[in-house]
């Protein structure tokens, strides 16, 4: 176990540190792939975030970036192909089949492993969503290759190995993991961990269509129905531009109303630290952090949250972090941009009132003039 202490020389990473050659059968595995997650007609934004990361890896390696699109024949799938190019793919591998309409493990795992076996990518990235994790685990097992979950950083070494960094030991440490002697090197990344790359309208490039050798009657699992989540808000938390969250410092469930009111006043989503979920004060899908949602808002306001490492990793991507905490030594002040040492329960009503005043149409006119 090495330490991050800059004075201690790091052992050579990647293959160089192993003195091993990549087995012959994997030598022709090339290019970086991103699985484009298409469900109910929509591409999950994590796929675009991964295309952004994949672009960097492909450029470093001097190889191509491909999107792997699996879906039913039709407009949504064609649109996913176009979007893959718009977010930077050089080419797209496409499996179109009616039985890929709803996600099921059997046909998706089959289609994905077929694609990999046929076209041999060196790196395959998937979103760490429920779908991506369900799929990645069975694809990696079928291919007998390495899979690193929930990476927070991806890079390639001088020798071309994928260096996949992820939190370990409950988030208190990070570790860098390699898949040295197997291909593809697989990794999943949670939504919002990587920045959203710029989209640019581009012509549809090379599309390589692949046939799925599977018929509906060979698939045992059937989808009987789908029930969308009722609260639409929770789905938006990860992608909200402004997020307000409360922690144990608020003292009681009744004070969470303050967080919700502030959120309403400024058009934000609201969230919380983990203990609030454990106490049943907030639903699980409002939890922010390593075992909850990762957010990347333009503004994040944390009230009564200490800033434990597991919370920090979920919010560090925010452009501006504002912390309200009674303890001047709270760890959250180590990574927040703006801090205010005060009692959040007393301060939040004043903040709500001040925001409302400032954002009211009257003061907006002043702003415009």
């Amino acid at each position, binding site marked *: 176990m090495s330490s991050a202490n800059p004075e201690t020389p790091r052992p050579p990473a990647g293959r160089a540190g192993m003195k091993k050659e990549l087995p012959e059968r994997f030598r022709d595995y090339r290019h970086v792939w991103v699985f484009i997650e298409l469900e109910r007609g929509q591409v999950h934004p994590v796929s675009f975030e991964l295309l952004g990361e994949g672009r960097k890896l492909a450029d470093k390696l001097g190889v191509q970036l491909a999107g792997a699109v699996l879906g039913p024949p039709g407009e949504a799938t064609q649109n996913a192909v176009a979007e893959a190019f718009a977010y930077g793919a050089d080419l797209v591998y496409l499996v179109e089949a009616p039985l890929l309409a709803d996600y099921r493990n059997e046909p998706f795992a089959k289609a994905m492993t077929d694609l990999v076996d046929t076209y041999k990518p060196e790196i395959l990235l998937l979103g760490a969503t429920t779908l991506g*994790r369900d799929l990645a685990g069975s694809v990696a097992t079928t291919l007998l290759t390495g899979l690193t979950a929930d990476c927070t950083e991806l890079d390639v070494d001088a020798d071309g190995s994928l260096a996949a960094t992820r939190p370990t030991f409950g988030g208190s440490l990070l570790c860098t993991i390699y898949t040295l*002697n197997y291909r593809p090197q697989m990794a999943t990344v949670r939504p919002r961990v990587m920045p959203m790359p710029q989209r640019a309208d581009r012509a549809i490039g090379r599309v390589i269509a692949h046939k799925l050798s599977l018929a509906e009657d060979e698939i045992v699992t059937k989808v009987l129905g*789908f029930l969308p989540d009722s609260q639409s808000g929770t789905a938006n938390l990860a992608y909200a531009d402004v997020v307000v969250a409360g922690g144990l410092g608020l003292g009681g469930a009744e004070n969470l109303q303050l967080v919700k009111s502030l959120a309403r006043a400024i058009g934000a989503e609201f969230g919380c630290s983990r203990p609030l979920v454990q106490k049943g004060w907030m639903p699980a899908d409002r939890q922010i952090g390593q075992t909850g949602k990762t957010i990347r808002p333009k*503004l994040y306001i944390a009230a009564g949250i200490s800033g434990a490492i597991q919370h920090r990793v979920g919010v560090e991507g925010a452009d501006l972090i504002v912390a309200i905490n009674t303890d001047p030594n709270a760890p959250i002040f180590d990574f927040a941009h*703006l801090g205010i040492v005060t009692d959040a329960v007393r*301060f939040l009503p004043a903040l709500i009132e001040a925001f409302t005043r400032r954002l009211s149409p009257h003061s907006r006119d002043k702003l415009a003039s």
Partner: protein
Amino acid sequence: MHIVVSIKQVPDSAQIRVHPVTNTIMRQGVPTIINPYDLFALEEALRLRDAYGGEVTVLTMGPPMAEDCLRKALGYGADRAVLLTDRYFAGSDTLATSFALSQAIAKIGEMFGPPDVVFTGKQTIDGDTAQVGPGIAKRLDLFQLTYVAKIASIDLAAREITVERRCEGGTQKLKSRLPCLITMLEGTNEMRRGSIEDALCAARSRIVKWSAAEAGIEDLTKCGLRGSPTVVKRVFAPTPRSQKAVQIDTAEKTLRDLADELIGAIFTRQPALEPELAFEAA
């Protein structure tokens, strides 16, 4: 019905501390627990057994002391416990782990009857990968049902199962077939209190202990470090941010002034935000 539940003993990570100077994990004295996500799997398995009859076998792979978590599981009412323990398993990544566990489940099947359902938790709290469940399913050719929130029905005669599973943005209702592998979502049930009889039974029960060879594993190159395609090369502490938060001075100010000052500071740093917020708030 025969149900196998694969569980893991994990350090109670809420109590793990990292040494501030050496950046190493201080494991001494950290209590171990059954991976909390596995309790939902175990409880669901016990409920199925209570409803349909049969037996629940709990399985874990780990060091000899992992026996503790099996005893706890027996205390909750599991019927049989198998500990897979061998130094050949040390350093297993998820691929090697799913190999060893699937071999042991196959052996359990031979000895105590083939399982109808294999359960795992959604993920562990120390690895957090959610990969071992799908790995076992693939290796044993079981139908894979992850993130299951509810088992709606089981038809043992027709070998059919209907479940509700959590997916992005909603719940999927799926019909599949036995034998299947289910990873159970958290918060879907509540672990029972074990009965006195179960507690007594747990204390008295003999836990089946298998080495790799006893579990029928012939190919040791698929186990432990050797069988793991991933290699951990570096463990390090996150780099602290060099700049601390700019503090709004609170001395002798009214809350109203403080709030105005904070908002001013926010919009000075993010000028584009003000019109956006005004629009959102309108």
